[in-house]
């Protein structure tokens, strides 16, 4: 079986929760949700998942706990959680914006607002998912820091951005000054393509590996159990 681009994205997202232990996986968006459920069904069986509302549920939907927003916020602050958020803009140090584009006082484009990005980034590991990698998203400087990046995180003892996943590859901050590094490209993507779509100088190692292949079992779980309607392909061009 040959994996599609959206399936490599699912694998790359799932890997964010490898060895995470007994914590809450909070995926925002479809591909991260498929990834979190895949991780739960394979290599991270102790993960907690929600129904997207107020219940903690097993992969088959059976409720196993109650997590209304007020308790969710306590869990965030307690740190036993790894969230994968979206990003309208993200910069080289991992500052993320979902609030607005342009001048905050009178934005060109009003978006969601900061939501829980500040509390997430200061309290539990926060990764990001970007379905359309472009210079409009990967910018030199975000217009509004919602999710806190490494250059704003001095003294923030619980701050960590494990990875950024896009439709082109996987990125991390494993560099001396925590600037963004290309960790892998998805098969079919070139390093030049990633550079071209990124609005800042990305750290690119001499050898860039490909995002790993899904196993036969993982592909079966994605295609037959978790996302049989193939909604994932609508979020990412195959």
């Amino acid at each position, binding site marked *: 079986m040959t994996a599609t681009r959206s399936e490599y994205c699912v694998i790359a997202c799932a890997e964010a929760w490898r060895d995470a232990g007994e914590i809450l996986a909070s995926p925002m968006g479809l591909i991260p949700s498929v990834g979190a459920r895949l991780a739960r069904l394979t290599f991270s069986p102790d993960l907690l998942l929600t129904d997207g509302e107020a219940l903690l549920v097993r992969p088959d939907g059976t409720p196993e706990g109650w997590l209304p927003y007020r308790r969710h916020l306590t869990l965030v602050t307690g740190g036993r959680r790894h969230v994968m958020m979206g990003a309208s803009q993200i910069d080289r140090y991992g500052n993320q914006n979902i609030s607005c584009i342009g001048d905050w006082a009178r934005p060109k484009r009003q978006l969601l607002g900061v939501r*829980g990005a500040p509390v997430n980034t200061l309290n539990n590991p926060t990764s990001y998912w970007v379905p359309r990698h472009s210079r409009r998203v990967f910018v030199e400087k975000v217009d509004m820091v919602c999710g806190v990046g490494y250059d704003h995180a001095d003294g923030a003892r619980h701050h960590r951005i494990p990875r950024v996943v896009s439709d082109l590859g996987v990125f991390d901050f494993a560099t001396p000054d925590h600037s963004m590094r290309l960790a892998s490209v998805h098969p079919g993507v070139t390093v030049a393509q990633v550079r071209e779509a990124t609005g800042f100088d990305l750290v690119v190692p001499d050898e860039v590996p490909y995002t790993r292949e899904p196993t036969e079992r993982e592909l079966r779980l994605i295609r037959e159990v978790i996302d049989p309607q193939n909604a994932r392909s609508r979020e990412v061009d195959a």
Partner: protein
Amino acid sequence: MSDKTMTADEVVSRLHSGMTLGIGGWGSRRKPMALLRALLRSPVTDLTIVSYGGPDVGMLAAAGRVRKLVTAFVTLDSIPLEPHYRAAREAGAFELMEIDEAMFMWGLHAAANRLPFLPVRAGIGSDVMRVNPGLRTVTSPYDDQETFVAMPALGMDAALVHVNRADRLGNGQYLGPDPYFDDLFCEAADAAYVSCERIVDTAELTKEAPPQSLLLKRHSVTGVVEAPGGAHFTSCVPDYGRDEAVQREYATTPWPEFAARYLGGGLHDRDPE
């Protein structure tokens, strides 16, 4: 014991222009829409709104009633971006205090506990501090010496919330999976008005639901309004889900047209503008 039942219009008669008004629910979920419709039919304006924002914020913004908004987001949930809120923000129509979801919650807790602030880790390092120059920090007096945002109390003149059931005294019950923050809104406000799907006898409240579903206690409730469908078009599970068709209509119809339809036609007669 006092019967607190009143009509939505009686609630609105107790509200004034310039007030700070808290609105319960979350996004497009269990918003006190019947009370809001009554508010929108009144001339009350120049409001400071405190809300986990949904169509409540969008409607008040579209009608030009907002002087200042305190929020972490505004969304219709199934439609991520609230079109009327967007338009108002992009026109610079009102002042905004944009804070994180947790900062917002601790602001409510501080007010409910009559504390001037509560320390919260969220906000440090983010532009929430830049766009709210009035926010102060506080350093732990203990060995860790960590610096926190001193989230100021979000006190309110009045709060509007909607729940599934209530008795005539103001004991309010939620039957869905999430209480949101409605109890905190009531406790953080000088006056709190609760609409409900159905007013029942006190004994009915615990007949089919456990006592922990009794979210609102009567000492923090000023008035009770029976308003079946009173959260429509937002969700009010288990009584009903969100009316996606009407929400779509709301999101795609010019406000004056939608308002004429949705508010029963009286809007323009009574609007001071």
